[in-house]
């Protein structure tokens, strides 16, 4: 379930915590597993993390369901998160969201029909206020968004 590369990464995180406190690495482990699985977690993957960190399985489900960075339902491999918090909102993020939704013919929280792009659920502040409005595409920040810029970013994704 957990491949060798992921194991190596998780072990690095476990080493950061005192012996016997390996469960502290759960968020890192889940993030690594989500990456390994191209964007989302499954029950089997969470169980594997629980076994690897000697935790109760339910405790891993709790963490995965608490943080919005973890997707527990299948999503498309490309993820777009558009910030809609105060700075971005004042700079017109609502318009960006509407534009992206229209262009991709999907809604916030869903995949595109061709199952290529996932538009993440309402995203909280991503700490890029100086470049508002902004969005994150596959872990890369794109700031000072305009419709043209969005067109280019989405075109590059294809």
């Amino acid at each position: 379930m957990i491949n060798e590369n992921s194991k190596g990464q998780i072990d690095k995180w476990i080493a950061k915590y005192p012996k016997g406190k390996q469960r502290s690495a759960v968020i890192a482990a889940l993030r690594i597993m989500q990456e390994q699985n191209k964007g989302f977690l499954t029950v089997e993957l969470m169980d594997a993390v629980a076994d690897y960190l000697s935790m109760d399985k339910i405790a891993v489900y709790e963490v995965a369901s608490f943080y919005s960075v973890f997707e527990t339902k299948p999503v498309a491999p490309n993820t777009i998160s558009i910030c809609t918090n105060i700075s971005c909102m004042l700079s017109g993020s609502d318009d960006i969201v509407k534009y992206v939704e229209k262009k991709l013919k999907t809604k916030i929280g869903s995949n595109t029909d061709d199952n290529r792009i996932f538009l993440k659920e309402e995203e909280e502040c991503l700490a890029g206020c100086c470049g508002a409005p902004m969005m994150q595409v596959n872990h890369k920040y794109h700031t000072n968004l305009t419709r043209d810029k969005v067109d280019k970013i989405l075109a590059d994704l294809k």
Partner: protein
Amino acid sequence: MITNDNKINITINDKKICCNVGDKIIDVADDNGIEIPRFCYHKKLSTAASCRMCLVEIEGAPKLMPSCATQASDNMVVQTKSDKVVASQKAVMEFLLINHPLDCPICDQGGECSLQDNAFSYGKTDSIFKEDKLVNLSSDIGPLVATNFNRCIMCTRCVRFGEEISGHRELGGIGRANTIEISTYINKNVDSELSGNIIDLCPVGSLTSKPSQFQARAWEVIKKPAIMPFDCLGSNANLHIKNNKIIRVLPRENNDINEMWLSDRDRFGFLGQYSQDRLSNPIIKKDKSWHNTSWGDSLAKMAEKLKQAKSSNIGCLIGGNSSNEEIFLLSKIIRSFGCNNIDYRLLQKDFSDNTKQKNTNWLGLDLKQLEQCDSVIHVCSNLRKDVPMLNHRVFTAYKNGAKISSISNRLYDFNYPLVEQIGCKPSNTIFELKAILKEILKIKPQKIAINLDDIVSTKEHKNIALQLSTAQKSVVMLGIQAKLLPDYTAIKTLCDLISQASNSIFAIVPEYANSLGAKLYGAIPYYSDNLGKNSEQILKSNLDVLILYNFDSEYDINSDKIQKAASLAKFVIVINPYSSQIWQEYADLILPLATTFESSGSMVNCCNTLQKYQQNIKPYKYSQEGWRILLTLADKLSLDSFKYKSVPEIQNDLTDIQQKIILNNDTNNKDIKKIGIKNNVDDFEVINEFAIYQNHPMVRRSLALQKTNDAASYNKLIISLVDAKLLGIKRDEKISITTNNIDHTKIITSVQQSDSIPDSCIFLPNGAKYATINNNTTIRVKESI
């Protein structure tokens, strides 16, 4: 000022109170009769301080403080009823009720609900919340606990219980903020053997009892104290009774025994009371058919047959869950004929410790001491399922830092990590114990009359020896599964030697609710100076009269042997609450017995605590209490010294006997040289077990318990992965097993391959004799002694 004994003075609502440093304000208030409302706080669980209902005003503190999470300090002045507090309580109640449905009229918690009570006492009559309420769907978490998460107020008591008491967290808070919900996340049952306790913990109607759903209102039931007869601990409980029917069972707090918990077996076992196969009146066999008869006639007949019988040709087998009074009277009646053929050890195979030595086999320490020990070795024990509340004490010891190891024939699932877990074939158990003894003797050299030269020990044995030898207070705990092994006496002797060599306490877990009472009051063949026949010998004898008292013919005893014995005996008398096809076929007289809940009596638990109980409900139809039946029989036999008129009169005599007997777990060391490793055989060794929900006739008939995964796990044939490959059996393949079930039919069961079982061993479902795979390969199993 803090005094030398760590006492401080605080003031709550102008009342000066002396308390200990570190006490929580809410506990101090509780102890002094000052009411503080709460939802999430529970004295046996960790503090969450999440419900905010227990906020109090503390002089000098700028904000209200949660009294469950605030420690008392010297000269603290606390107000629990100030305007600020009352306003906060109103606001908190309004907040907690935001998403709560108004379905009290159809809620089982109604009438005993903290939310109702606190809303009435501390809430306000209206709410400014006009938005839509959230809806959380109920989920199926098994046959015991009904859920309605719409009513949940997120106190997380059930979640904390899983982590801190049952030792395995199955429920959690999934999601966050206003959409968080209590859930198992994946669709699964809550399988803990203590799961029923979350019903009591839930302060609202979110978790309620499934078997008693919609049966009665809290104010309609009468609460009567009872002692649970389903394991050797004798947990204290209250029966909730409506119209002479037990509706549900709730724990009665007793810190020396079950604290404030009950195992699921204790809580739901009573359902078997209302099984369809209860016997309703005495019946007698005439010309191969059964006829109703009166109590007077049937007991006269019994007396007549007993008088006619040759004294050495009377045999009596009695279930170990019978009360002291029944055991005492029955054994006294049998012995009045000069006969000692009485035994309660119905499934034991090895009787070589059957000596005149008064060997009582008890736990050897009380439960508080068990919690304080720092090292435990389980031998042939599935303690978590065998005696759940006893295992809870070991779990507490683990939380206090104890190290625990296990040696057993299957790798059982404990709810705490083990230092070492050794799984071995039944015939190798002796070898493993000898190896541990050898390692202990290396650490603590001493003279022991046993030859260990040819024993090869490994790292595991060394670790266990180290764990025992380095501990301050260690316990060697011999579990109930050992009683089923052909080498029981040898295993017991070795455990005794290990505990002597390592200076540990030797604890023996009794297998029945009243094993200790059976030994104290005479249900053993070596009770008097003349040695009688043990259960094995009774079953092999040609008897004039065979009395079978209070056990099932299918599971509580080897059913092939009992059928043979009953067919050989001239007159077979069965006294039992439940009927059975075997009894119908082989008995001559069947008398309906009242169950424990329908009788008065007493039992002695594993810690030698005598617990008395009263008759709580009337016996079913014409069945009678055991002590009444036996006293009437004594009268019909015109026996002297049976001048008792009531249970307390019998109990006076019992107390005298109990005080005279000194309990000990010593083994008969004379036989030590006979201990040897058995030769391995080609045949499969059968692993027999006392199963969690098969250990008592009533539990066996509790349908709710039989639907649990724990019960289902005993219906599978289990062999090791290696053997499965060798025999060509696939996982979950359906195979037929020939059982010694009532009509000898084949049952179909599925195979589970597991690495929890040693190679060339087989775990058969209850009562099964041997397995035939695909109707051609038969797994030959070693004939047990």
